[in-house]
């Protein structure tokens, strides 16, 4: 009997390994897109799925083959755990709040036990488990990828262009003058120099941050950790800034001494590239199987043409990392393994349901080029309009003699029940004039009272889950 049991477990192991029942999902998006809420909701839906069987489009759940799910400790012990219970408590407490935003990478692991559905595999094993790892990290970090192909000099040139754009100029003028006046040739004592560099670098970062806070713009030329340092806050490797003197950039830098401040800055830039960016992408690209990028289309629609263009650029840059065939240096560095990518527009609970498709196609138009490039590499790409935690319900009401579909929720500041019609969501890209004429207002709702025993209300999370991990449950 012992032998039979042993053979049985061995064969089970073999099947699991052969079918690869591990799936690692990376959740990303620029700050404010709702990554933490998404991760919380996804874990919550999976945990509730075997009990409630509410995920209609998650085929294994619809076929009642889910048996049980539980949160487990992940293997990668150096990555902090995702604080699921904390985030959930925030949501369901008496005065509900959105969970705190992602400042660092974190990971959660769920094991889902299910009955095998495939008619041949069923004969070998009756049930199995899929391990779902969800990694949540700031999208800003992905923007560092192009830096790998640059050296300090070319990065500085890119920065000059970036800093002198019309909108940014007023924020960066002061620090630009300061950096221009900086003495790059000086030979100083190491600690004194470090202190001086830190001062300037802090000021540089602060100016960028204040600009970003005002405009909600996601620039490209700045290293991602300048904005979200994660564990690197205050580390000297972040204390660098671009050279802004045109004449200095045209010089040959060989003549500078090794411990001149210019060389020190260059060294720090290279260190950042080698020790911060590279390991991150190494771990990221070689291990992640599925990727979801969250985009907050609502706030883009509200803020206008400039930030639409900015976000469009940034998303294209963000997704460039997935079209690895185009830049083969990337392929040489890492061997990417992502085979499915979902680009989702979040917070559609603020939009009446008949306009979801317009919302989705608007976002589709925005990412069309990038999506095309990624699809060319054989990665399956899908777009969707979702809401991780729905705060509203659709209603129909009469307005100016016509039926009007609206969303009903609780107004954030007054706590009063309110029905809101956000205006007509455009379904395609707009010209500058059309942007100016666009009259749209998505008033965010307060979180309604949620119960701990029920799954969080959502819109299309089941479809997202099916797309991301559905194929593993065979």
């Amino acid at each position, binding site marked *: 009997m012992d032998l039979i049991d042993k053979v049985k477990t061995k064969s089970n192991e073999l099947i699991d390994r052969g079918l690869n029942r591990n799936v690692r999902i990376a959740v990303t998006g620029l700050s404010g897109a709702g990554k933490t809420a998404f991760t919380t909701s996804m874990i919550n839906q999976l945990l509730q799925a075997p009990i409630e069987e509410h995920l209609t489009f998650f085929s294994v759940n619809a076929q009642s083959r889910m048996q049980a799910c539980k949160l487990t400790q992940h293997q990668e012990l150096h990555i902090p755990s995702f604080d699921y219970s904390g985030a959930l408590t925030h949501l369901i407490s008496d005065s509900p709040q959105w969970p705190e935003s992602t400042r660092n990478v974190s990971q959660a692991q769920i094991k889902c036990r299910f009955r095998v559905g495939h008619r041949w595999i069923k004969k070998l094993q009756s049930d199995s488990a899929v391990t779902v790892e969800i990694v949540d990290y700031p999208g800003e970090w992905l923007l560092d990828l192009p830096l790998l192909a640059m050296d300090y000099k070319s990065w500085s040139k890119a920065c000059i262009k970036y800093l002198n754009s019309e909108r940014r100029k007023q924020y960066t003028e002061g620090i630009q003058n300061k950096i221009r006046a900086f003495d790059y040739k000086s030979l100083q004592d190491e600690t004194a120099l470090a202190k001086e560099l830190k001062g300037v670098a802090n000021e540089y970062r602060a100016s960028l941050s204040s600009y970003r806070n005002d405009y909600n713009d996601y620039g490209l030329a700045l290293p991602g950790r300048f904005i979200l340092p994660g564990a690197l806050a205050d580390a000297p490797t972040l204390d660098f800034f671009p050279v802004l003197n045109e004449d200095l950039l045209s010089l040959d830098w060989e003549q500078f001494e090794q411990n001149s401040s210019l060389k020190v800055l260059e060294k720090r830039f290279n260190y950042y590239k080698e020790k911060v960016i590279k390991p991150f992408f190494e771990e990221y690209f070689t291990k992640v199987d599925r990727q979801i990028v969250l985009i907050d289309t609502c706030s883009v629609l509200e803020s206008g043409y400039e930030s639409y263009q900015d976000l469009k650029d940034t998303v294209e840059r963000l997704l460039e990392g997935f079209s690895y065939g185009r830049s083969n240096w990337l392929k040489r560095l890492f061997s990417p393994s992502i085979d499915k990518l979902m680009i989702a527009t979040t917070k559609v609970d603020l939009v009446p349901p008949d306009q979801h498709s317009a919302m989705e*196609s608007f976002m589709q138009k925005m990412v069309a080029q990038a999506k095309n490039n990624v699809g060319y590499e054989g990665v399956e790409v899908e777009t969707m309009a979702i809401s991780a935690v729905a705060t509203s319900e659709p209603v129909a009401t009469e*307005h100016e003699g016509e039926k009007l579909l609206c969303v009903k929720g609780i107004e954030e500041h007054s706590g009063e029940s309110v029905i809101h019609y956000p205006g007509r969501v455009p379904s395609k890209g707009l010209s500058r004039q059309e942007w100016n004429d666009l009259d749209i207002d998505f008033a965010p709702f307060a979180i309604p009272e949620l119960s701990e025993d029920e799954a969080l209300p959502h819109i299309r999370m089941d479809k997202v889950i099916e797309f991301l991990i559905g194929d593993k449950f065979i």
Partner: protein
Amino acid sequence: MSDKPVKFYTKDKAHKDAEKLLEDNVLGDSSGSPLTESSQNKPLLPESAVKVGFKGNKAKSWLRKLFWPSLSTFIVFAAGYEAYGFVTELIETNWLLGAVAGLIASAVVISGGFALFKGWRARRQFKKREQQQATLRRLLSDNSYGKASQVLEEVTHDIEEYVNVTSLENDFEKKKQQVHNDHELIQIYSGTVLKGLDKMAIDIVTKHASEAAAMVALSPLAAADMALVAWRSSKMIEQLSRLYGCPQTALGRFEMTKRVFKNMMLAGASELVADAGVELLGKSLTATISAKAAQGIGVGVLIARMGLQTMHLCRPVPFGQENKPRLGQIRKSIYQKVAGLVKTASTGKSDKSNDTIEKKK
């Protein structure tokens, strides 16, 4: 339709009047809503693709169309005239004989008229179903919202006349959400109500196919085989069409059978390729059983295929790639039935022959 954002507070009339979407189907015709525009903006490839095709040869069609109605009216008229003459002649000879003949004639007219009426109704129902299919197919490819629920309700209403689907219906009601668009709603409907019906339909097909297979395997006459196939298949088509809510009667069934055969010829080729591998495998098995049993299995498979085609024609929502019913499962039960029959027959015989051998000893 306003394009500006609006807010309605609790004190506003609109807030009080607001209705939940699920309870009230307010979106019957959402003409002029943003949705129609968005769907207009979308290049509707599938629809335009449908439009490509031969133009009906309408120029000469009315002359050709005239043939059958005129012929049948002529025959009816002639027969009526003859019958009238016949009955009056009988009355002249004997009034009782004439009255009986007249009664029988009127019974023929009434029942025939009723059958015609039912046939016409069945035909109309089938046409309606085809229209529903077209609508749902179009909604599946569109990005629309709020149009499907009405069609689905109509379909459910049709089905409910003949089958009790309350539990399936409840399942559907439970799963649908207000935010689901047409595509999702149809998918859910297909996955709940229709899935339940599919299961029953497959059972019907399996039953009829395996029964016919067994009968043919046992029947000694080739002519009886043909009659059997005709009988069982028409019975099956009737049941299947009832199940999906567009019942077909004798006259209507003719149209249906025509369509089924036509589709089988068209679709058969592709299915044949898919099934060929399995069928080749199966051949060695059938050959070992016996020629007659193989015939039975052949007939069973034919009927099963007819059944599946009928399902395709009657199902309101077209089958997807993953929920398409497969011949394989039905064939298996046909094999089992016939093989079981042959086995019992042959073991019975061999027992007897063993007995005779022993007796000889």
